[in-house]
């Protein structure tokens, strides 16, 4: 029993990162109707940012968020100007399809680039507090993973606040709701798109940092994290960032439960099955009525 409880707890802890990983994808998809399948590679890049800041300059991985997030914002803006900004000119169906293809090419190129620059080795960041464990009854809670969960929640809360209070946050939400109406009320929707994409990339960078602190990073984690984020987005729907976070935790727990029931190697399957089932029930996708 306590073994199961321990596994479910670890599921909750990684689930928070699934939620954070999905938040960026959800924001970009919801606002721009652009499906960026290179989202996992952006997470990977964020992870390497944190890794090299720690390895070369001794920056604490949690503190490195203060550099990785602005760096990712900038990267997001560059990617929007260079690539995804061209896609939003097309009508919705072509937009989703073209963005998928562009994201796909970007993912392959970034993966190959990361292998080229940093080898295919798996890396993690050793810290003095890395092994600290917090005991609660029979459960042992790794402190670092607990901290990543808390930070993920904090970042998602901050995003929610930004979207509801900030002038441009409201513009982003209005664009997501109905871009034509937003355009008519005088919102610069191109800028809303740019901001949404930059914010989405920043969230990916933050998620990558936390993944690298609590787990590890390698050039090939991209596809896996893109799939996790897609599963959560499909599970939680669009619109609510807090809902996305909860969706992430649900996926983490479902994976842990299935690993406990069918054995470790099957933990990846449950999420994919949920994904396929939800799609089968809602074949028109997330915007279907």
């Amino acid at each position, binding site marked *: 029993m306590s073994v199961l409880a321990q596994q479910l707890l670890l599921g909750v802890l990684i689930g928070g990162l699934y939620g954070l990983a999905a938040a960026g994808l959800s924001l970009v998809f919801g606002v721009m109707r652009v499906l960026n399948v290179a989202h996992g590679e952006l997470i990977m890049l964020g992870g390497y940012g944190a890794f090299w800041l720690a390895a070369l300059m001794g920056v604490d991985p949690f503190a490195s968020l203060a550099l990785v997030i602005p760096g990712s914002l900038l990267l997001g803006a560059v990617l929007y100007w260079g690539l995804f900004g061209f896609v939003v000119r097309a009508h919705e169906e072509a937009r989703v399809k073209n963005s998928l293809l562009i994201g796909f090419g970007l993912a392959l190129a970034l993966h*190959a680039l990361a292998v*080229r620059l940093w080898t295919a080795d798996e890396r993690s960041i050793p810290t003095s507090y890395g092994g600290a464990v917090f005991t609660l009854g029979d459960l042992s809670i790794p402190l670092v993973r607990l901290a990543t969960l808390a930070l993920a929640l904090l970042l998602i809360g901050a995003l929610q606040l930004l979207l509801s209070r900030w002038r441009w946050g409201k513009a982003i939400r209005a664009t997501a709701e109905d871009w034509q109406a937003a355009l008519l009320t005088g919102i610069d929707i191109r800028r809303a798109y740019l901001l949404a994409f930059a914010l989405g990339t920043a969230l990916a960078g933050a998620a990558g940092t936390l993944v690298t602190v609590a787990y590890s990073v390698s050039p090939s984690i991209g596809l896996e994290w893109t*799939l996790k984020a897609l599963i959560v987005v499909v599970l939680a729907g669009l619109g609510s960032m807090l809902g996305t976070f909860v969706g992430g935790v649900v996926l983490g727990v479902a994976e842990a439960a299935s690993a406990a029931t069918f054995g470790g190697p099957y933990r990846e399957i449950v999420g994919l099955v949920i994904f396929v089932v939800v799609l089968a029930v809602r074949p028109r996708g997330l915007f279907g009525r």
Partner: protein
Amino acid sequence: VTAAGHERHWALAILAALGLLALLPLARPREDTLNFVFLVLLAITLAESWNIVAGYAGQVNLGHAAFFGLGALVTRTLWIGGTPVLLAMTAGAATATVFALVIGVAAFRLRGAYFAIGTLALGEILRTTVGNVLPEISTLPAATIASYRLTQRYYLAIGLAAISVVAVAALASSRLGLGMRAIREDEEAAEASGVGALALKLTALALSTALAGLAGGLFAYYHISYYPAHPFGPHWTFDALLMTFIGGVGTLQGPVLGAVLYVVLKEYLALRWVDIHLLIFGALFVAIVLLLPGGLVQAAERARGMLGRARPAA
């Protein structure tokens, strides 16, 4: 020249090239030369098979590796069990097709990108399951290795590449292919003018996955040892997608061009930098999607158009 005539010219040219390649073993080339051409031929089959669903029916299938993998799995199991290889490959292709039709009915309810990510998820489910159930490497029995002949695999690869080219050429000039292209351009309009979209998409998928299953069978017949989950890996899908788009999606000659370029560059660059071809092709692919959706075929047509205009009138 009409579009159908165009396809026929290209089909004849490609078949002639394949015929020349069939003479290659007579020149007693080095074994690595035959292996290299084999890889090109396998790539052509895989790319053309993916092209049927993407290029003609307009559906981006990101789970293509599942059908390649199923073909490999069934062929390998039956063949090692004593079934003649051609029969085993047919069974592999049939399994892949039946599986495709079963999931196709559900998957084709998904539109556009949802079809793409749905098939990607299905492929990953199959890959993980096969990896869990069959974690051991599959190696041929010693007696089979002793009697292994590369030339048999080579001729089979030429045959498969020829079949896939003929299949796509026949499809391109048929009513069936016309209906598929109507779906690709505008599914609602096609439905409204009496094209049964689901039936045509399923036909395209069946044809595509039968060829992918055969290609998987050839892979199983060719390799001495591999992990059973390997042919289910998503990179088989990604390779097919890159080759098809770079060459020219929805044309007969595009995927052949893309496959040759892809394998040549991949093998050439691998001598110095492993996997750098993915960086080049990933970037090239993005550029093509953004600037030149018709790939190299379209680029060639544009260049020819410009030259034609530049030439003074006689």
